[in-house]
């Protein structure tokens, strides 16, 4: 199995390290900067960062076209990455890959001083709560019929899956808990 981390901007090193720990012995993890690298992947992580910046660089270097040519590719978007997976971004005219039938609201909890950490119930990962770090985080405001909601903060959806796509409003790569990265690796490997 080969999993790539999109390395245009954002916390790429943290995702590379988390994914390497998550799939140790099961495959390789590479940093992806070029469209042609997308062809060889089973899974792609779009990291946290600025969605406007990453979106522009995706288009500039035709990575959107390379992803479009690979409908079987599993994709895990965290924070900015989740925004880039959404069909609809509320209130902003900006680029997205439009792969998941979800709407997102950017900076939904407010500005940086409202960023927070919280223990989250994620039933698909087991009983132990997941310590989740939210930084200027988005929320998912609408989930289509084929979208499975996996976690909420109060009433706001913060983790959702649609087939081979996984959108996450927080940053699992900033903690030592690799359960969510392993969950994605299982999707990419076709086990889930």
């Amino acid at each position, binding site marked *: 199995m080969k999993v790539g981390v999109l*390395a245009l*901007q954002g*916390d790429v090193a943290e995702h590379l390290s988390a994914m390497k720990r998550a799939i140790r012995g099961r495959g390789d993890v590479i940093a992806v900067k070029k469209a042609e690298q997308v062809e060889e992947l089973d899974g792609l992580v779009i990291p946290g960062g600025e969605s*406007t*910046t990453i979106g522009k660089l995706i288009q500039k270097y035709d990575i959107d076209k390379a992803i479009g040519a690979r409908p079987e590719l599993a994709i895990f978007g965290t924070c900015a990455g989740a925004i880039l997976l959404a069909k609809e971004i509320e209130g902003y005219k900006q680029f997205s890959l439009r792969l998941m039938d979800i709407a997102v609201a950017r900076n939904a909890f407010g500005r*940086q001083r*409202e960023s927070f950490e919280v223990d989250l119930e994620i039933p698909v990962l087991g009983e132990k709560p997941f310590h989740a770090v939210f930084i200027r985080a988005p929320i998912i405001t609408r989930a289509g019929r084929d979208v499975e909601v996996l976690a909420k903060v109060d009433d706001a959806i913060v983790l959702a899956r649609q087939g081979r796509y996984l959108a996450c409003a927080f940053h699992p790569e*900033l903690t030592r808990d690799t359960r969510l990265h392993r969950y994605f690796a299982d999707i990419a490997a076709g086990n889930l």
Partner: protein
Amino acid sequence: MRKGTVKVKRGLAQMLKGGVIMDVTNAEQAGIAEDAGAVAVMALEKVPADIRAAGGVARMADPAKIQEIMDAVSIPVMAKVRIGHFAEAQILEALGVDFIDESEVLTPADEQNHIDKHKFKVPFVCGARNLGEALRRIAEGAAMIRTKGEAGSGNIVEAVRHMRLVMGEIRRLKGMREDELYYAAKELQAPIDLVREVAKLGRLPVVNFAAGGIATPADASLMMQLGADGIFVGSGIFKSSDPEARARAIVEATTHYDDFELLAEISKGIGEPMKGIDIRQLSEKELLQVRGV
């Protein structure tokens, strides 16, 4: 639910990595920066080159000016306070800025004490010329470090000097025996626990950007290759002949800093860079980098 923790403060800086933070003085410039792919903007009344030219006391910008910029863009907005001026910082935190730069570019308010940055929910970035300065700022609660370079000079030489010093001192710590770290901490004038952490990690425990003199895509590539996590461009964009093209080019150069064929394309036809200053023509009292060590 816990807000303003070390993790969320350092975490925002981690999200900015591989990106470019641009100085802007109004909503129009902020829009240009965002459209070019900036990861954040620094809201200012004047860019450093103009602060240098104007002389007098440089202070926190008018909150109305900062608010105008916050309303204009969706990316994080940073703003500067004078070194040690915690009241300016309290005002910016209340205003809701996403990051505060306790900056030597403004006239220091306190020649001994920096702000106790642990007391704030909003993260701080501080300048440093070497590892000791960086670790003292982190001890005070800085969530991000940038090289000081020489702001408003358009000259990369000081940023290079400071980045090489920081990275070289980190490499030296990595090779030390544990019993040698105590003396290293004494030499660096930095807390032993942070010195140990750096020796173990082989890097700073927070994100480290390059700043102070970056004017071209090649400058951005140089600083990234020397180990910067990202780039601040102050005067370099809006003091150049074609800010839009230069801003886009520096963003792309920061991402693709090690692809030299692409850098050749990126660097073509982007107009004249800012004029810049030969640092050796500046007297000691004109240097901004010696403030707040």
